[in-house]
């Protein structure tokens, strides 16, 4: 396959940035999108120029690094996949492909396609944890009976890989799907119950502080999320926060 790529190039946070055109030839339809990017970078390096910076790590859909906004969609046109799981057979010979970084005030561009997603880390630090003593006398988790339904829902929420596609794709750059998944995975389990109130209040407060937008329930996040995190989690976060707001001392 021969393709035209329009790639966002930006030399640091203070550069304005621009789309640049590249031609790549003889791309195998069996390559992943990231392998195609590697081919592009080899070509650029041979020309003695600066390769395109992009985040990647596991290349198997579990780390959430490979943030790319491809042809107007987070992680490209596929559903339930990350960029590393997107295959070139999704495209046609001769296609023009636009490749942009996640765009949000809360995710500033570091270079080219690499953005700073540490806002997510600070949200987790604000309350996305359980304060348990791990000194060796921790109770066996299996000793706590948990309804199957709750365990399943908590597990589904816990599959969120923190990639930020929900923010990237939301017209408001809202982080609600991410935060709701992180609140849900703990709120549904007895281990998470004692810190339920402060968790909801603090994580939402941090989310707002980071400059993410307000959720208006467009539902775009659920469609584009590689882990298909459900909007049910956002409903749960809305309940958790309301409950915590009404009774902050509990």
């Amino acid at each position, binding site marked *: 396959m021969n393709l035209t790529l329009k790639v966002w190039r930006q030399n640091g946070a203070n550069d304005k940035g621009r789309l640049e055109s590249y031609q790549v030839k003889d791309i195998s339809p069996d390559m992943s999108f990231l392998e195609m990017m590697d081919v592009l970078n080899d070509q650029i390096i041979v020309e003695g120029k600066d390769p395109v910076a992009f985040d990647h790590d596991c290349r198997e859909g579990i780390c959430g690094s490979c943030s790319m906004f491809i042809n107007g969609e987070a992680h490209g046109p596929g559903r339930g996949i990350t960029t590393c799981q997107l295959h070139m057979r999704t495209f046609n010979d001769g296609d023009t492909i636009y490749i942009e970084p996640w765009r949000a005030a809360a995710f500033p561009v570091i270079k080219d396609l690499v953005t700073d997603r540490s806002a997510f880390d600070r949200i987790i630090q604000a309350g996305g944890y359980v304060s348990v003593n791990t000194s060796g006398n921790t109770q066996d988790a299996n000793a706590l009976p948990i309804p199957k339904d709750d365990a399943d829902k908590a597990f589904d929420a816990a599959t969120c890989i923190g990639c930020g596609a929900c923010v990237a794709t939301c017209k408001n750059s809202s982080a609600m799907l991410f935060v709701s998944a992180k609140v849900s995975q703990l709120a549904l389990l007895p281990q998470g119950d004692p810190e339920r109130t402060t968790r909801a209040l603090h994580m939402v407060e941090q989310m707002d502080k980071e400059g993410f937008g307000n959720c208006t*329930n467009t539902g775009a996040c659920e469609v584009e999320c590689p882990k298909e995190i459900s909007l049910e989690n956002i409903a749960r976060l809305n309940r958790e926060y309301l409950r915590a707001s009404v009774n902050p001392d509990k």
Partner: protein
Amino acid sequence: MSRSAILKSSLAKKYWMSATGLFLCVFLLGHLAGNLQLFMEGAAGEYQFNQYAKFMTTNPAVKLLSYLTYASILFHAIDGLLLTIQNKKARPVNYAVFKASANSTWASRNMGVLGTVLLAFIVTHMTNFWAVMHWGEMPMQTVDPEGKLLEEPLKNLHMVVMNFFNPAENSLALLATVLYVLSMVAIGFHLSHGFHSAFQSLGLRTGKYGKLIMVAGKVFAIVVPALFAIIPLYLYFIQA
């Protein structure tokens, strides 16, 4: 929740949006029930409608509800404006290509625009009828349907409405009818997203009720605006 968080937190803004929006949905039902009386024909219909209009402007309970409605519209509009501005700010650099149609409905992405259209409609609508009824010069109904003289003449809002949509009385009747119907289309789109969104904001669009709310929202967003829109069309065509 600290006092400032009631207004400032992103979620609290959504709770208010949702509460005022749902209240306005209930208001729409009440308003519709009143308007449908315009289908009643002849002197009896006129008398009934004018009595109803009088009740709506004088009853103390209705007064209270009307103040709540004005406040809701105002708060909903301001809160909606704040949300829209903040959300624009959250993405300072736009995408070169943004394929939003792949993952969300048009209405859900244009609530601010639709709301602004509705605000313009509400202001014009209130100028045309509400302000006239309160402070304008009104024709009076002096006899009841049997022809008996009324002790207290009634403001004849029925006649004002009929004339408003009568091309022989109002040169802009056709334009008014068309704009009214278009505004109802805008309400329909606003509610096609707003109705279920309001339940989601409160955390209630979930589990087995989730589907029911989605369906109820679609039905509400089509049936209520359609019934509103049929009335001016009917009044225009029986008089044209």
